[in-house]
């Protein structure tokens, strides 16, 4: 099952870097992020750390940042320039409340202050001074209170308002935004104070296209106020366990809905019947809802349905034949259900499928024969299933396959030969304890591989020799304990690497760091649980793109790393120990 210790933490660190588009593998309750898990991880890549020449614009903006106190106002500048200066100051965290005055009459359009430290009611005066030019306000994670929202009344053209994680906002605050009839996007994630009564203002927000109320605990009964919002295309009420079937009724007439997310709610098959007329519905997320295959009857008439997430719904094989009618589907997530090969028979006709997730289902080798016709499959998730080497034979014809996850399965080296013809493969997860060096040997033809996860596989130094074929590798994880410094030498020419995890190879010494000292594209490095010491840190000096460094359980202290950060690695934002 998902690994313990440093692996999970690595994944969290990677999340920071990949900007919260999570892999989904370890995020067991990542319902609202599941789309990230549906497609090839290769498509979601860590930012390539290439350094291009800064433009003159950028140089000037940095200069302004340096001399900030020399400027009393930017109102003489064209708006798009003052907007860029503002955005840069937010990005570099140089914007203080005293600086706000300089932007008073700049007619800014965009105030993206999400999670910016110190934003409170005092800032709202500045927000309202931008008046009718303001199109977007993001004050998520701020300390703004209900009375702070009064200032938004002047922003009559506001289209996009993000109040996620604003713990001080309640029904009273909603009152103050009731007049914003140009609002198209509104977001109130994780709010425990908004209730049905306050939500009555939504009925006046007639332009609303996108509404996000994820993790709001008290909104039961409030969706009735959405009834007339016929322009609504996207509604997210994931993880609102107060939501029941009754709350689905008012959605029945919202025929422009394209995306509906109700994961971890109490909606049952009966609630899903209200979706029958939502003919434009393309995405439906019901992860963790108490539904059964019966709900598929309500969905079979929806010919635009492309994405369906039914993971953790306690599905059994019973009624599995109903899947056969969902032939428009491109993405199907059935992870963590008690389904077996019998259900897979019904997926044979779903030839539009590009992504299929069967994580932790009771699927075995024979079940995979039903996938041979799914020629559009790009992403296949078989982690924690009973699939072994024989099953891989059925995958050998899937010419478009880009991402395959066989972690925690019983596949062996012999089976991997069947994958050698899948030239489109970019991402391969072979974190399985029967995989050894010979398995790697069988894969050297897959020169397009960019992500290779061999976390718990039994790879030794001789196996690393085969890695040289993967010249495009960006992400590599080998944490089985079998590597020594000699093996790491074979990695030193993989110049595209941005993520490298060699943790738990406790024979590695500072010499290993010497070998990788030239991998200047590295953004994330983990060599925890090894014999690395602080003397080895000098080898990391050239890794200017490094943002994350993990050296837990090594003879390295947080101070050692901090010194390295100050002297040589300005981009290092995450490090452990800290």
């Amino acid at each position, binding site marked *: 099952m998902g690994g313990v210790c440093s692996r999970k933490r690595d994944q969290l660190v990677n999340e920071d870097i990949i900007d919260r588009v999570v892999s989904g593998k370890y995020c067991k309750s990542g319902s609202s992020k599941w789309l990230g898990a549906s497609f090839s991880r290769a498509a979601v890549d860590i930012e390539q750390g290439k350094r*291009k*020449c*800064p*433009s*003159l*614009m950028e*140089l*000037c*903006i940095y*200069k*302004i940042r340096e*001399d900030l106190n*020399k400027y009393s106002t930017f109102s*003489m*500048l*064209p708006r*798009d*320039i003052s907007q860029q200066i503002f955005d840069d100051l937010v990005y570099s965290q140089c914007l203080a409340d005293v600086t706000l005055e300089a932007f008073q009459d700049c007619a800014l359009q965009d105030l993206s202050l999400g999670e910016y430290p110190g934003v409170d009611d005092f800032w709202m005066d500045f927000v309202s001074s931008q008046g009718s030019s303001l199109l977007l306000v993001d004050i998520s994670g701020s300390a703004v209170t209900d009375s702070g929202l009064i200032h938004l009344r002047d922003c009559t053209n506001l289209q996009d308002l993000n109040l996620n994680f604003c713990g001080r906002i309640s029904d009273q605050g909603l009152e103050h935004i009731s007049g914003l009839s140009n609002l198209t996007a509104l977001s109130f994630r994780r709010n425990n104070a908004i209730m049905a009564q306050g939500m009555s203002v939504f009925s006046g927000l007639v332009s609303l296209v996108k509404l996000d109320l994820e993790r709001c605990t008290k909104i039961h009964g409030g969706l009735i106020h959405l009834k007339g919002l016929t322009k609504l295309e996207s509604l997210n009420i994931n993880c609102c366990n107060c939501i029941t079937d009754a709350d689905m009724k008012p959605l029945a007439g919202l025929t422009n809905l394209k995306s509906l997310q109700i994961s971890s709610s109490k909606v049952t098959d009966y609630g899903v019947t209200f979706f029958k007329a939502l003919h434009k519905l393309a995405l439906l997320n019901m992860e963790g809802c108490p539904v059964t295959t019966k709900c598929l009857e309500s969905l079979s008439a929806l010919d635009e349905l492309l994405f369906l997430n039914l993971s953790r719904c306690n599905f059994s094989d019973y009624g599995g034949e109903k899947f056969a009618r969902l032939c428009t589907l491109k993405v199907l997530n059935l992870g963590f259900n008690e389904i077996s090969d019998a259900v897979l028979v019904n997926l044979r006709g779903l030839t539009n499928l590009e992504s299929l997730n069967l994580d932790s289902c009771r699927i075995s080798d024979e079940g995979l024969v039903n996938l041979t016709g799914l020629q559009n499959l790009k992403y296949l998730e078989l982690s924690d299933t009973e699939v072994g080497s024989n099953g891989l034979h059925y995958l050998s014809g899937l010419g478009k396959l880009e991402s395959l996850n066989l972690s925690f399965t019983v596949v062996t080296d012999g089976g991997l030969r069947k994958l050698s013809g899948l030239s489109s493969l970019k991402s391969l997860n072979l974190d399985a304890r029967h995989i050894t060096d010979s398995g790697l040997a069988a894969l050297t033809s897959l020169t397009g591989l960019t992500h290779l996860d061999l976390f718990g596989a039994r790879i030794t130094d001789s196996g690393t020799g085969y890695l040289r074929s993967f010249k495009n590798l960006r992400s590599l994880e080998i944490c089985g304990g079998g590597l020594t410094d000699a093996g790491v030498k074979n990695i030193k020419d993989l110049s595209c690497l941005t993520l490298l995890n060699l943790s738990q190879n406790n024979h590695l010494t500072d010499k290993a760091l010497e070998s990788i000292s030239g991998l200047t594209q590295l953004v994330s490095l983990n060599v925890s649980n090894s014999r690395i010491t602080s003397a080895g840190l000098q080898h990391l000096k050239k890794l200017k793109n490094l943002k994350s460094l993990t050296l837990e359980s090594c003879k390295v202290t947080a101070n050692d790393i901090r010194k390295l950060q100050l002297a040589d690695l300005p981009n290092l934002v995450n490090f452990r120990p800290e």
Partner: protein
Amino acid sequence: MKKEDTVKLISAEGFEFVIDKKAAMVSQTIRNMLTSPGSFAETEHGEVTFPEISTVILEKICQYFYWSLQYASGKETEFHIEPELTLELMMAANYLHT
């Protein structure tokens, strides 16, 4: 420098800066002016006038062009900007798309 490889950039006050074409093309705006067929008179004479850009600023911009080519070839140095020039320089950079 051969004439075919150079362009002439003229400031508001009439000062002429003769620089390598390669340097001038660092600016997307100048690049478009010099390469698009027939739409600009500039292509014929290899001259561009900037009535809104002062001499001091235009000089600084030319310095930036050469600095940028040097940077791209691996020599990364600092580009110094006098504080009193910053705002004007920024507006010119915006116009020149550079």
